[in-house]
């Protein structure tokens, strides 16, 4: 889903950093909500309450989409212009690799004590119905969908390529819109 939007916006956008700007807006909006919500006091009104909360519960920290978006922007606006199919492969692969390289280590960082603060929200987004003693609270437990495997990654990379190619098409259409 993400490459479709990011590539589409980058292709149609007039600015050099359209996709990066869109991703940054997403991160700022979600982050803003995340940082503001816990300022309001709240109390759970439904049983069972395993995790007694006293403030609004934020979402988790926004995905680091700005980094793959930067890669997409640089590739699309580079001088060398391969055909759209090759470009789709290039963009999809770039999105996948950069996103993986940034988000995966960041995920590990999120589980460390260093992330347990108001900014990174490492321990703040557990809702009232989560067991505070659950083993996955501070660690990565298993992989129920079986996605974090080599075939899983290959599928994700292939989907990124398809999504990026569709993004190019959508971007072309979007660029032609005149009213």
């Amino acid at each position, binding site marked *: 889903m993400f490459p479709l939007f990011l590539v589409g916006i980058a292709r149609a956008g007039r600015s050099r950093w359209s996709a990066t700007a869109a991703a940054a807006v997403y991160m700022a909006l979600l982050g803003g909500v995340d940082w503001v919500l816990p300022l309001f006091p709240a109390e759970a009104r439904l*049983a069972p309450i395993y995790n007694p909360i006293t403030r609004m519960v934020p979402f988790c920290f926004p995905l680091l989409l700005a980094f793959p978006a930067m890669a997409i922007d640089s590739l699309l606006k580079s001088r060398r212009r391969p055909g759209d199919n090759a470009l789709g492969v290039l963009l999809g692969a770039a999105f996948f690799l950069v996103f993986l390289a940034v988000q995966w280590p960041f995920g590990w960082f999120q589980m460390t004590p260093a992330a347990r603060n108001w900014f990174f929200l490492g321990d703040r987004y557990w809702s009232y119905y989560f067991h505070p003693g659950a083993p996955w609270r501070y660690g990565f437990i298993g992989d129920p969908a079986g996605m974090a495997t080599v075939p899983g990654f290959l599928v994700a990379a292939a989907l990124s390529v398809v999504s990026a190619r569709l993004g190019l098409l959508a971007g072309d259409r979007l660029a032609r819109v005149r*009213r």
Partner: protein
Amino acid sequence: MLLLSRDAAAHVGSPDTFFAGSAGKYPVRVTIRPPGVVPGLAEISVRVGSSGVRRVTIRPVRYDAGPAGAPAPDVATPVAGQPGLYAGALWLMSEGSYAIEIAVEGESGTGRTSVPIASLPTRVLPMGRGLFFLVLAFAVLLMAGGLAIVFAAASESALPPGEKPGPARRRAARNTTMAAGGVFLLLLFGESAWSARVRRSAERQVFRSYRTTAEVRAEGAVRVMKLSIDDPTWKGATWRPLVLDHGKLMHLFAMREPALDAFAHLHPVAVSEREFEAPFPSLPGGTYSIFADVTDETGLSQTLVARAEVPAAAAGAATALLPSSRADPDDSWRISPPLPPVVRQPLVSDLGGGLSMTWASASQAAPILAGRELTLRFLVCDSGGRPAVLEPYMGMKGHAAVVRDDGSVFVHLHPMGTVSMASLDRLSGRHRSDSSESHGTMNSASDPGGEVSFPYAFPKAGPYRLWVQVRSGGEVRTGVFDVLVR
């Protein structure tokens, strides 16, 4: 043939919980109608039997979260025109055993009590017609809007402002719109398949008590009933150990089909991981419906349902009062005339030993209505009409079993209502002392009043048979009553 259904939690065909007890100094009667779906809203009504009440609050306490994991209580609102009656609704968010904690605040201070209930999916709610048409109307509106946007985008979006699209462009736009319509239809189709899948999954998750089979075999002159739980989930991940209720692991009620003329209340003991056995008393052979109440350590009660073919007793064994030394001393049974088409309900039942039991709260003049909350009150007298002395029978002043003639309703009642003592013990720990002794729990003292009563509402119309059991003179006595509920 009785309809033996496992689609029930504690009790069969009678999902509501009735409780009579006290919250501190206030006598209360509580009725809880579970939603039958999870999550769902349970309707709670509390009738306080004394005046000077300022407010009544209710809150749900799940067994594993405890009072610390319960939300702030909701205030139950007084019901207009019915002094002393308070009503409210609480969300039960997850499956399992809950206690509804009731606090009454007033002139006599604050009194609390807890009523255990099971939050279980027992049905799948259909979509109402009104909601169906509303959703359909929104879907049509949404799709029409979507097609209009597609057509506008395809025909005009790439043209300079003000320029009209030519015929070729309009034709191409129409084709694009038709293709989009096809995509929308595919989406609709997918959605319908998805919702059917969700529905099937919900139907699979409907709670059923453990699948159980029963058989009776002859061991010499003694017949032994064996109940086997052969459900794959027994001892599975969701399984919890059973706990004692009135000192017994299992309360088993057997009634002969179809006339309900023979009745036994037995207490099988575990002979293996999944098998329970009890000697079968001196009752005639035939097909028996079996209802066995068990409670697990979370306080969740359920009724196991089975059917057993009982062979006729061997000659000479029929006169034996206790069929075996393995029999539980609290086992009891009774033979009575077949359940006739109930026209006039007999209001007096002979208990033997010169005792008789009168259904004091019923009268020929006033029919009993389905859904109406009642206090079923019984009076035990000796031959001279004096109230008999009632002794505790398994810690209670009395036990009652209620069965509809087709087996679609079975409930095991105590003076404090439909809840099991074991559930109360598990779930209402600190309020237990508040649940007054005078409301049916008896530990050692005898009661000379000769009276026992049960709060209940018959869930639907039809003929019912009631077996009311008390202990007097050291023996368990069973009164039998028939009633036609309208």
